[in-house]
């Protein structure tokens, strides 16, 4: 990592979840910077806007599945085409309340997703996961 300011991008259309999850992450101290996006489009435009400033790109994305217009899977379709330098720096986990077997299978099959976390976001689970990818 080029600097120590670790950044996480939260993508969720649900304002309450966005608030609660950013608070959980803030209290955990796992990330120095938290970027909140209320839609998949907003998340993608954040990424493309900053694509040439590697320091501005997130290290971790927590992505919801069920969102109006563009859902989490649509987000991943576009993300797939982003340059390597982003993917080398950043990992994605899905954060969803889904119990749908199809959703779970689809998530597991996606090479860009490291895990499907179930809502509510539990700090221990997040730490366990991130331990494998970052030095915490």
């Amino acid at each position, binding site marked *: 990592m080029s600097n120590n300011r670790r950044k996480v991008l939260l993508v969720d259309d*649900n304002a309450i979840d966005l608030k*609660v*999850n950013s608070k*959980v992450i803030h209290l955990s101290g796992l990330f120095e910077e938290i970027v909140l996006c209320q839609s998949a489009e907003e998340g993608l435009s954040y990424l493309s806007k900053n694509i040439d400033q590697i320091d501005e790109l997130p290290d971790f994305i927590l992505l919801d599945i069920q969102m109006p217009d563009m859902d989490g899977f649509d987000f991943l379709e576009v993300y797939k085409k982003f340059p390597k330098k982003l993917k080398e720096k950043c990992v994605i986990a899905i954060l969803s*309340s889904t*119990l*749908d*077997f199809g959703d779970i299978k689809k998530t597991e099959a996606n090479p860009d997703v490291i895990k499907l976390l179930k*809502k509510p976001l539990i*700090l221990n689970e997040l730490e366990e996961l991130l331990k494998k990818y970052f030095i915490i």
Partner: protein
Amino acid sequence: MNATTARVLYIDDEENNLHAFKAGFRRQYEIYTANSAAEGLKILENISVHVIIADQKMPQTTGVEFFRSIVHTYPDPVRILLTGYTDIEALADAINHGDIYRYITKPWNDLELHNSIKNAYDAYKTKIDLRNKIAELEKTNDELNRFIYSISHELRAPLVSAMGIVNLVKMEGLFESSGEYWSLIETCSNKLDYYVQKTLQYYKNSKEISAHTSIDFKELVPSLIDLYSFTDKETYFHTDIKQDIPFYGDAFRIEVILGNLISNAIKYQKEDSINKKVDIEIQVRPTEAEITITDNGMGILNEHLEKIFTQFFKIKTNQGSGLGLFIVKEALNKIDGKISVKSNSLEGTTFKITIPNVK
């Protein structure tokens, strides 16, 4: 003529027969006639006919050949074959390839032919009704599936948000700040979530078609234990899984079955016991997997043993939903599995399950 009048097409190369037919039946049916298979086909192209009667012996195309030629293009009209002589071969052919409803010998008897047409039209209506019913059911089924999908998201999402808030309250050390209120909210949320999840499991079990995948019990069982012992770390799990050969089965239902039994084994422990234990043994054979789940919990009363697999059966002393074991049984029924139970209040409960290895 009303809308339910049968439309009958009669094909015969003998004009006299066509006239006789018209004269005999025009009051009862809407009649179309053709003097060759080719002419008959032209009528079929323009009019939706319910019953087709064709003479077997015609110069270019025989009745059977004609019926055979329209099996795929016009499958709906019900067919009646008229023959002047008993040609077994033609009949066999007609039945095997022409999808013939009835055959009638010439010269026909008006009453016999009339009854045959009437029955054929009834058969036509039944066929169409059945098709409409199937389409309707498929639509309902599809809607129900979408309803379940949306329930799983729309109903559960705000609930899970609330659980997230409770979780945050804990992190901020405020859980005890309002007496027991937060913990009551947590209990209610968990309970509602449990009901939503069980309802979904039940519907998914009754709808979903079995999909067979390879199952590694050595992986599956520990992950289920992790999942269900998340809220209760006191129960000690011992597993002995003997799987040297591949096992194929319905992953969704097997997860549901084991998940419910493991969660029960945790839930129905003796509250003040300091030695809560669950033992899971699995033996995978080429024909089946035998699974034994033993706990040293509160046990099941003898008089309750018969009822535990029925819907909404629950005991007063515990806050079960009465759905868990019912779903286990339903899921096992879907995959031809078996379950038996032994229990007493001193030693606890043992469930023994066999699930066929479908490879």
